[in-house]
């Protein structure tokens, strides 16, 4: 399959048929169009609501020859219909010179062509899989229609899988160190009261996964080990106890594929093997990470390509230890390349589920490594990190800020 490159940011879409075909009853067309949209809502959390007036996401028209968009239709046969990708408005036009039919081998099947065009309206380009709905050629009436797996992969690459709660509930892989389930865990360990300084102010200094698979958050001179959706018992602990030789108030941290964890503060960095300093540290960042600035905001190893990314202010640097120079001259680049991320981050965490998590203040963003944008989910991002990551009680689970 192929993605054009744009998609809708909302999953609740509206449509209206502003011009009906000459030869079919309006009610029949309404039903067939609804059925065509359901081809895509069946595999995602997309919903499609018909409207009869006012602005809509997808406008549908049955027209002939030149019809105002510069891409004229050509009479019977040839081009049957066309549609615009989301970035161009998502509208779908059908050539009314065709003999549009419903449930019949005669003429051109409206359901199949409409389902194809709505694939374009959602951001799919043509597929080179001949059996796919998104293949460019009309294959004739198919009495039993089934979406090809190529099409399913395509639409889910853009809008994610359908959540198990019938598409209106929370997606079970919706956040936290580990996907937070909606059900109460069968066994919940006894909770010992902990110093809830992190819940009063969830802003953190750094976050990383250690080589032994634990997730740690650093804040001030304390550090926290994180569980599936909270803080482990007995934490926070003092950094000086748990990580001898490491100061508090660090700027950034990550664990590289060599199993070593790198901590950054000011102009210096430390390398740890497990919990102990791994050699003569600290060293100057300029010495060990040439091309990377000091006083960093965040750092992580990106799951997309295994390279190290440093963030500071509105810019980011990509560091590849295997290259000379490790930072190409085309860096720094604007953080706005990471669609949906704010500047001046606090922390970043590479995760194994194909997502990277970014933290700023009391919120976090889940970044989809495949679509290269902040993920679309319900509730939307950014989300309060206190509730989703640190197990804070009586804190909101969503932010008021609309996900623009």
């Amino acid at each position, binding site marked *: 399959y*192929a993605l*054009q*490159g744009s998609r809708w940011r909302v999953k609740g879409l509206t449509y209206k048929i502003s011009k009906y075909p000459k030869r079919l009853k309006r009610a029949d067309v309404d039903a067939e169009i609804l059925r065509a949209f359901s081809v895509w809502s069946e595999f995602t959390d997309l919903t499609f609501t018909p409207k009869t007036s006012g602005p809509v996401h997808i406008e549908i028209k049955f027209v002939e020859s030149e019809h105002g968009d510069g*891409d004229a*239709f050509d009479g019977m*046969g*040839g*081009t*049957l*219909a*066309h*549609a615009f*990708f989301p970035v161009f408005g998502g509208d779908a036009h059908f050539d009314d010179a065709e003999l549009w039919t419903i449930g019949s081998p005669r003429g*051109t099947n409206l359901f199949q*062509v409409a389902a*194809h*065009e709505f694939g*374009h309206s959602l951001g799919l*380009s*043509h597929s*080179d899989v*001949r059996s796919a709905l998104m293949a*460019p*050629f*009309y294959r004739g009436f198919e009495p039993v229609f089934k979406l090809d797996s190529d099409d399913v992969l395509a639409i889910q690459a853009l809008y994610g899988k359908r959540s198990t709660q019938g598409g209106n509930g929370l997606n079970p892989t919706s956040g936290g160190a580990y996907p937070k389930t909606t059900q109460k865990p069968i066994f919940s360990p006894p909770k010992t009261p902990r110093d809830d300084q992190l819940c009063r102010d969830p802003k953190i200094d750094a976050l990383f996964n250690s080589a032994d698979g634990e997730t740690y958050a650093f804040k001030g001179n304390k550090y926290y080990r994180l569980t599936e959706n909270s803080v482990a018992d007995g934490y926070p602990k003092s950094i000086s106890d748990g990580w001898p030789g490491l100061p508090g108030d660090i700027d950034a941290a990550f664990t590289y594929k060599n199993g070593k964890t790198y901590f950054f503060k000011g102009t210096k960095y430390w390398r740890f093997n497990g919990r102990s300093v791994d050699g003569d540290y600290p060293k100057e960042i300029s010495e060990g990470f040439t091309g990377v600035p000091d006083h960093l905001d965040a750092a992580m190893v990106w799951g997309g390509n295994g390279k190290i990314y440093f963030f500071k202010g509105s810019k980011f640097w990509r560091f590849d230890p295997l290259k000379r120079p490790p930072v190409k001259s085309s860096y720094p680049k604007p953080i706005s*390349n990471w669609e949906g991320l704010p500047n001046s981050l606090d922390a970043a965490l590479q995760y194994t589920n194909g997502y990277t998590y970014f933290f700023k203040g009391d919120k976090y963003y889940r970044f989809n490594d495949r679509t*290269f944008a902040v993920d679309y989910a319900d509730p939307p991002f950014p989300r309060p990190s206190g509730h989703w990551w640190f197990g804070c009680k009586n804190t909101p689970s969503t932010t008021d800020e609309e996900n623009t």
Partner: protein
Amino acid sequence: TGPVSTTTQAEIYLSQFGYLPASARNPSLGGLLDASTWTKAVQDFQSFAGLNVTGELDEETMQLMSLPRCGVRDKVGFGSDNRSKR
């Protein structure tokens, strides 16, 4: 207008669906299409459509070009004359 030749029909088709960039006709060649551009466009279509990639306008290729289809281009947003954004 007289009957349009098969090659011209194919050229219109390949241009319409993104295999031949609009700038394909080289002014320095008197507006002619150079052979390599033409052959690559035919090969691209054959490859996309799952045909034998011959680069020739053979029967099978012309037959597929005559099928009713969607009007959206097959090649969108990439190719040498389009800046591909990461």
